[in-house]
């Protein structure tokens, strides 16, 4: 769980980000222009800033200069190389171009939080302990061996917790390829493995006709 400030002048997109990040367990604050964002940074400590570049009052590029050590992800419709370079030069941790897909954004948020150690590297679910750093899982204190793909699947499900992921999407996110023929069976097999090995039957829900959801 991390404290995230979302700075985006498009109200709908701001709300959307807020809703999704809250769903996966983060706490969000919203700012709709640059001045408001600077005010928030001063009064509150955040683990991550999600910044639009083109903002009324103060631009995203100016806000990052005052963000100090807080990690920053730019979310913007500006896709030219010059702007991306500028973003990274100013110390952005990632740069996401609109339109983006939510699982991608959530994955990148998680990646930045882990890299900057802003989020716990351990997670406890009932008797299960997951160590994201060493990529190990323990059930009742005993280590359970997972294949790299199984762990990646678990990680993806937890990153997108409470959101349904279709088999095709999971293939894309975990196996990095697009749906072809009957390969979605692979997903089902791995899900079965996770449920059995880690006793996660009550958490990994099948959503009929859609896919899977990790409920927490």
């Amino acid at each position, binding site marked *: 769980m991390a404290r995230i400030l979302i700075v985006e002048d498009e109200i*709908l997109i701001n709300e959307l980000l807020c809703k999704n990040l809250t769903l996966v367990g983060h706490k969000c604050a919203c700012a709709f222009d640059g001045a408001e964002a600077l005010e928030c940074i001063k009064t509150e400590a955040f683990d991550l800033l999600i910044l639009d570049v083109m903002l009324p009052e103060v631009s995203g590029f100016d806000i990052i200069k005052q963000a100090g050590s807080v990690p920053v992800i730019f979310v913007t*419709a500006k896709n030219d190389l010059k702007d991306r370079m500028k973003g990274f030069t100013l110390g952005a941790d990632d740069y996401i171009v609109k*339109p983006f897909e939510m699982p991608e954004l959530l994955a990148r948020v998680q990646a930045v939080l882990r890299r900057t150690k802003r989020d716990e590297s351990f997670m406890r679910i009932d008797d299960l302990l997951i160590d994201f750093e060493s990529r190990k899982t323990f059930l009742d204190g005993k280590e359970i061996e997972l294949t790299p793909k199984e762990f990646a699947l678990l990680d993806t499900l937890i990153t997108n917790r409470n959101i*349904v*992921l279709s088999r095709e999407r999971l293939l894309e996110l975990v196996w990095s390829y697009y749906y072809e023929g009957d390969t979605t069976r692979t997903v089902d097999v791995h899900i079965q493995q996770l449920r059995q090995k880690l006793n996660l039957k009550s958490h990994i829900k099948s959503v009929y006709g859609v896919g899977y959801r990790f409920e927490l």
Partner: protein
Amino acid sequence: MKKSFFERLYITVLVIFLLFFNSGVLLTAMYTYNNAVTSAEDICLSEHRYISQAFETDYADKSVTGVQLLMVSYGTFYGEKNIKLRFTRSYNGTVLYSDIADTLPAPEAGNMVNTRIDGKQYIIVSDTICRGSYTLTCAKDVSYLDEELFSLAAAFAGISVTASVLLAVILYFVMKKLFDPLEKLRKTTKLISGGDLNARANEKGDDEFAALAKDFNVMAERIGEQMDTLKLNAEQKQQMLDNLAHEMRTPLTSIHGYAEYVYGVELEPADRMQAMNNIMSESMRLKRISEKLLDSAFIRENGIEKAVFNADKMLERTRTRFLLKASECGVRIDQIPCNITLNGDETLIELLVSNLTENAIRACRGKGCVELGAVKEGKIISLYVKDNGIGMTKEQLSHITEPFYRTDKGRARRDGGTGLGLALCKRIADAHGAALEFESVLSAGTIAYVRFEEEKE
């Protein structure tokens, strides 16, 4: 191998010049030689006459012992002077004295022969003397004429070669100098074709090359301007495209995001409705953008159809259409009758006024009034839309007709503005040759004018 124009011209001029010069030299040489021959012949004739007279005098002088003896002494005397004589008796041709070789021709009495025998040239003159009793033939070796001819030829050849070489060299440099401006012009064109559009030719002088250089510079100037315009156009188009991409991406992100949200998350019915509503409103925004773009494209593709129409009726229609929206926004909307007719595309001008009215209502921020009308000042007819809303700064005014420019980004979007309205207005005005002008005072209001120039009948 292809020769350059310079080479061709140089060679042509040189050949023509050398041809005429050398022909002249040759003719002069021939004339001189002929003169020499003629004068040699004259000398021979006069010598013949002189010898004849002297002989006749001596012949008449009876103291001379024998005519044959006289002839011998004459022959000997003149033989030493390189003039050979032959005396014959006229009536039977008996040779009385001769030191002329028999191989030489003997012309009839009263004639002269110029002949060449064994590499030597002779002039032979023959005539009767002593009242026709005898015939005297004088032969003179004029081989010196050949030598003269030879030295003459040598001299003229020398002159000819020297002059030709000198001429070739001088001509080369003179022509090089004359071609200099052309060469420079060529270098300039090379510079320009190499990308340096600021290169200019030297315009000094008043010959054809200078004129060409001037024309060339004018052309280069025009091309430069055209390039600048094209570059500017391309930049504006790119800017427009970037903005368009931005404007499309934002609603697309919302639509996709909320669709994902509804699809993937278990939601309360109220939340679900809200998300659906967001998707619909953002789709509408995309639709409005595409409509404005289509309107814009329509004008560009189809041009305009002008007709005379009554401005009052058009303004009245616009007012009626906005009446409901204006009252919802707490804005009063008035139309001032003016009784003015306009020549233009009525549909497009109505679209223009509608866009201006929409902006005016928006600028009122929930209270105020909007006035539509037209005025005629001299030859200018102005439609105007006036509001007492928030007004704009000079900085904002300078940008408002750029596509996707918004004075207040967040607010305009919430109000349903696409950022394309005034860009469209400008396009319509431009298509009519009309000017779109704004007068605005911050927090006092804005007047938008569309100024048409009345056309002469």
